[in-house]
């Protein structure tokens, strides 16, 4: 009995148990302070569903030894283009999502391939290079959003009639269409069933993918490239495959995120997108050497809940002590970047 308990603790990891304990403590505090706990939990669930795919998108590159994909925004931009095209053509509802998916995934395959080739040429510095490419592309796309020949008057600036607006509202038929699919209330909690089902379905697909020939080769390349080569595996091809898969998942993730959020945010919005996702997978217990689906799921759940719950509670506490102001954003940045820094210092993993 004691032994099974100990092994359970070591699988989950002490840091995660501490965080979970902290979350419980926060929930109790929230209840005492009179914050709407049900709403907090509902918000957490929505955010988990929204961000889960971005975190999942990090898994293939980590497994293949390419490192954390700091260029996640590339895939997100592909998804954004798909969504905007749907808006421009006036397609709504599930067709809008499907169109965005087809275009987004197609673009992501092409962009991911080029990105993968580039990362192969800069082996050993993938994370830094990915970061630069992500930043550069987001900035480059700012020009694209401005100059692209979109004509739909609901999308372009009212004055001048050119250039997309920074935030586009998704029509009611598209907005939250997947969130609301089969969604139900449970003790006052709104469960975004569709998004959750999609997230877990993607996890399941990836689980089986990592048992196929390509998937296992990815693990081998990540674990020891020389071994992989001696086993007849083409290291560079596998690395490119992992980057393409990651980019496609990010495009998919962006579409799910946007439908849940109800808005399409352009220009600089995708710039910092990889960072919270990376913080998620790291808080879940992943390291540069070892990452699993469990890390993705636990990490997303803990990190997103932490962000959703901590901030209102802390704001409340700060408000009580008499200091005004909102420190939510500051905390968000400190937590996510601190985690990334922490994980990078422990490259070996535990």
């Amino acid at each position: 009995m004691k032994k099974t308990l100990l092994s359970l603790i070591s699988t989950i990891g002490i840091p995660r148990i501490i965080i979970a304990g902290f979350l419980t403590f926060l929930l109790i505090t929230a209840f005492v302070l009179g914050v709407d706990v049900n709403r907090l939990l509902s918000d957490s669930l929505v955010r988990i569903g929204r961000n889960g795919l971005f975190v999942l998108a990090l898994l293939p590159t980590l497994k293949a030894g390419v490192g954390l994909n700091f260029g996640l925004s590339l895939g997100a931009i592909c998804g954004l283009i798909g969504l905007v095209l749907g808006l421009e053509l006036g397609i709504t509802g599930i067709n809008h999502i499907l169109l965005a998916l087809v275009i987004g995934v197609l673009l992501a395959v092409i962009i991911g391939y080029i990105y993968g080739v580039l990362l192969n040429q800069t082996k050993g510095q993938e994370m830094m290079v990915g970061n630069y490419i992500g930043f550069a592309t987001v900035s480059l796309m700012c020009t694209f959003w401005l100059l692209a020949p979109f004509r739909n008057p609901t999308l372009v600036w009212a004055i001048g009639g050119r250039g997309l607006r920074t935030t586009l509202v998704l029509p009611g038929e598209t907005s939250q269409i997947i969130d609301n699919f089969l969604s139900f209330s449970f003790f006052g909690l709104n469960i975004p069933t569709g998004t959750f089902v999609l997230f877990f379905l993607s996890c399941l697909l990836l689980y089986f993918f990592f048992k196929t020939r390509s998937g296992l080769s990815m693990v081998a390349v990540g674990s020891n490239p020389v071994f992989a080569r001696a086993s007849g595996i083409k290291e560079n091809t596998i690395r490119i495959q992992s980057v393409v898969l990651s980019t496609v998942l990010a495009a998919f993730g962006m579409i799910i995120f946007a439908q849940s959020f109800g808005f399409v945010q352009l220009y600089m919005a995708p710039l910092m997108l990889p960072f919270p996702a990376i913080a998620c997978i790291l808080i879940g217990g992943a390291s540069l050497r070892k990452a699993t689906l469990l890390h993705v799921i636990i990490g997303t759940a803990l990190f997103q809940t932490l962000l959703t719950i901590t901030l209102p509670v802390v704001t409340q506490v700060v408000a009580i002590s008499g200091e005004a102001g909102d420190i939510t954003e500051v905390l968000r940045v400190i937590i996510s970047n601190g985690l990334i820094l922490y994980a990078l210092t422990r490259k070996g993993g535990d």
Partner: protein
Amino acid sequence: MEIAREVDKSKNNNIKVLVFDEPTAVLTESEAGNLLKILKQLTHKGISILFISHRLDEVLQVSDRVVVLRDGEKIAEKNQSETNIIEIAELMVGRKLKRLEVITELKPQIEDSTILKINNLKVSMPGEYVNGINLEIKKGEIFGLGGLAGHGKVGIANGIAGLYSSSGEVWFQDKPLQLNNPYAFLNTGLAFLSEDRRGVGLLLNEPINFNICLTSFYIKGRFTKNLLGMKILNQSELNDYSKKIISDLDIRCLGPHQFVRALSGGNQQKVCIARALTMEPKLLFVSEPTRGVDVGAKQKILEVLVNLNRRLGMTIVFTSSELLELRSISDRIGIVHHGQIADILPPDAPDVKFGLAMSGIKGAVQ
């Protein structure tokens, strides 16, 4: 050039001792002859010379006294006039050591047909010099490859396995083998146990069963099952197989899920062997399998190799820097010198022949 400059310096400056470490290795024969003459002249001027070489004839030609080192120990010191090339060769190899007793109740079944033919193989591998190997391996034999470090014995298998870029022609079962392509190498029915166990041979951060299965899963599609048209890993089949091979090879571990990093050197080597066996190769290249392995495991590994050969008829090309090992289990031993096969000897050939072959002299002494 550099040698000439150093020699010139020594004439002008007040140098008393000169050390030459394998000076003739980079020179042609006539150049080497000139150098030796110059060295003799230098000694007449009162300069002492320490001449290090594996070329025994040169050593005897220039030296006044000869010291033989083996495995970091001084074995003998002789005056040049009191010794000869045969004695030095014997001292270099070490006759005192007795053969490892490897239990072999079964006789080797060597066929006349050639299973592997190597023609003018050149490999560019750092620290190894393979320059035009010609070799024929017979079906069913254990062929030993020996020679001094850096002379190319290790490079041969690495080159054929496609790990380092190589040129030349290799025929396996009368079909040409594509070089520089590890996939083709494995797919043809060959396998290679690398001398660099931790660097090439293992996934240290993965469990034993994953290490054992990966290559044959990738190349041959073993351990697969169908799931909605996808071929995925069959975990239960793999676990059963791993448990069996763990007990067959006596791998000391906690079970098939233990990480390879946690195993001892000998057990890691056994995992490598298990991986190669899972490929069911017709011909197996084995490089330095007993390096960094304790004595008990050493014996076990050699026994496994012999059993593979005797029971399954697997042809084995066995590379080792320990001559003793080579002579214990090989049917024929090729000695590599300066990137080429200097001589092919039976395991019971006199020590002196091995010693001479290692310094590049073929069959000079009867």
